[in-house]
């Protein structure tokens, strides 16, 4: 039979069957559910992944009462997971930038920055250089997400190659921003973290200490030097942090984490999400079978008519396949439009905090999977239904006239 006749029969059958409206609705629901649930899972897992692996603070161990940093460095030199050991004060300092916003400066001049962020401070001979995030928060406190949050968020690219004024106690210098890293990818939710050479941090710290000593002497008070005795150890991967921490504890040091991941909470959320996804998948599959059964029941009469007038199984399969494909494609297009509407509704109604912390990721895999599932089930059940119906006349009694 010619292709145009197949198309003629398919389009005719498709357009004039009211049941197809129901089938399109059911399949649209199935595809939408699959795309939404898998996209939500992807968004969540990306969020979790960024929280765990993207935030350097999870890889940082603070070691207390360190008399000799060299001794600690030597003790950890055999452990390949340890990428950075330094005095805590050489690690980070909080400063004021351009007189209007807070910055955390982290002083790392070795290969850690390159490993983690693909940036290198040593590419330039200049000393006062920074690698800064792709977004700056210019508000008073980056921890507070208020309604002005988005307005206060500025692109880091606007500052690239600009000079930025850094002020701390007894310290006032201009720094050039020579590189940008993706804040969403690396320091999730921590917008104002810049990296500079270790020597700069030491300099800022020494000025701070001198200023502190002056204040102490003037006020005749005792200033604690405990902070001198702290060290910071950075581990290459979050999975190795516990092992490194145990090694440091075995050396007799007391440790704490700069930031600890709530693994139990994440495990619970992951399990819940998995359960929801499986439930949605089962519901989806059941709806798909119901829809397909209705489709085949309705086609049964026409298939029998075709068989009676001499159409063979091959032709019947093609006619039914084409109709199933048409049904799936139309449902898929509607579902995709629906998903985009849902996406934009969510996008405009989510708070700035959620939008920035958990940007919705539409899963391409879910789109491919949903169309494959819909098509696969309908084509397979069509095949089985037509192939298994050997007797023509026995089925006439079953069909609706």
């Amino acid at each position: 039979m010619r292709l145009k006749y197949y198309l003629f029969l398919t389009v005719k059958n498709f357009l004039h069957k009211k049941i197809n409206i129901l089938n399109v609705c059911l399949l649209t629901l199935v595809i939408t559910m699959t795309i939404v649930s898998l996209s939500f899972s992807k968004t969540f897992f990306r969020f979790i992944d960024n929280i765990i692996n993207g935030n350097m603070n999870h890889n940082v161990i603070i070691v207390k009462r360190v008399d000799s940093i060299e001794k600690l460095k030597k003790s950890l030199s055999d452990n390949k997971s340890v990428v950075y050991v330094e005095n805590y004060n050489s690690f980070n300092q909080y400063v004021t930038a351009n007189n209007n916003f807070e910055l955390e400066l982290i002083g790392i001049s070795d290969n850690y920055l390159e490993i983690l962020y693909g940036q290198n401070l040593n590419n330039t001979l200049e000393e006062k250089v920074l690698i800064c995030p792709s977004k700056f928060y210019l508000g008073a406190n980056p921890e507070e997400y208020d309604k002005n949050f988005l307005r206060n968020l500025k692109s880091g690219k606007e500052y690239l190659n600009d000079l930025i004024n850094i002020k701390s106690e007894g310290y006032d210098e201009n720094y050039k921003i020579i590189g940008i890293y993706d804040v969403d990818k690396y320091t999730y939710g921590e917008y104002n973290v810049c990296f500079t050479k270790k020597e700069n941090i030491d300099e800022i710290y020494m000025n701070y200490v001198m200023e502190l000593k002056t204040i102490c002497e003037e006020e005749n008070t005792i200033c604690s030097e405990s902070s001198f005795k702290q060290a910071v150890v950075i581990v290459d991967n979050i999975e190795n942090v516990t092992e490194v921490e145990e090694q440091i504890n075995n050396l007799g040091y007391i440790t704490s984490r700069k930031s600890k991941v709530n693994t139990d909470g994440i495990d619970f959320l992951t399990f819940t999400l998995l359960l929801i996804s499986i439930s949605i998948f089962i519901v989806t599959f059941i709806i798909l079978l119901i829809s397909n059964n209705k489709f085949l029941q309705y086609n049964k009469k026409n298939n029998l008519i075709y068989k009676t007038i001499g159409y063979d199984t091959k032709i019947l399969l093609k006619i039914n396949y084409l109709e199933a494909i048409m049904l799936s494609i139309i449902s898929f297009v509607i579902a995709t439009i629906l998903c985009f509407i849902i996406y934009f509704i969510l996008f405009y109604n989510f708070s700035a905090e959620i939008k920035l912390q958990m940007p919705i990721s539409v899963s391409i895999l879910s789109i491919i999977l949903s169309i494959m599932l819909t098509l696969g089930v309908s084509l397979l059940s069509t095949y089985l239904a037509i192939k298994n119906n050997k007797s023509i006349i026995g089925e006439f009694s079953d069909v609706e006239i």
Partner: protein
Amino acid sequence: MSAISILNATKIYQLKGTSDKAINNLSYEFEYNKLYVIMGHSGSGKSTLIQCLGLLDELNEGKVFIDNNDTSKLSEKEKNKIRNSKIGFIFQNYYLNNTMRAYENVMLPMLINKNYNNKDIKKISKEMLSEVGLSERVNHYPKELSGGEQQRVAIARALANEPDIILADEPTGNLDEENEIYILEKLRSLANEGKCVIVVSHNAIVKKYSDVVINMKKGKFEDLII
């Protein structure tokens, strides 16, 4: 030459452990140029017989011959070809495709017949409908037609490929008297044109138009009136 014949035909239906012989060791030859009426009570096996004659169902034992050719050895594809070009079916419930217009229903058998091109198919199907008095209703959907009109569409579809054998299972079962007479006269004229027409019915009026009346009981021919 017989148009269609059966030899030692037996058809058994298995129902909940019991077996029922719908056709019981039957042999008969149906000839061209004749209208046969098979009569009998419900369950006598007349519909089963017509379905086996039309290769819609298979016998458990025995053979069906069409133009003296044994059909038991034919492949499914060859049987489909015979159903398409050699046999025309008419059913009590018309079995029209409700998603298609009257002329499109008539086109259906021609779509898989390589002897027709696209323009011919449309033209012939409309002509066929004119022949059964539906020239004004060619573009109507089955649901817009009366029972009699639907049956005429079904007849036009059955005749689309100019088959030599017409098998009609209770063709007037759902029709009023006027349409009943029209359909029976049409079937009579087909027999007069040289076709072999076999009608299954329990309506006595059909006898008037027939050449041979066969009474069937418990899967066997009880008597023949010629």
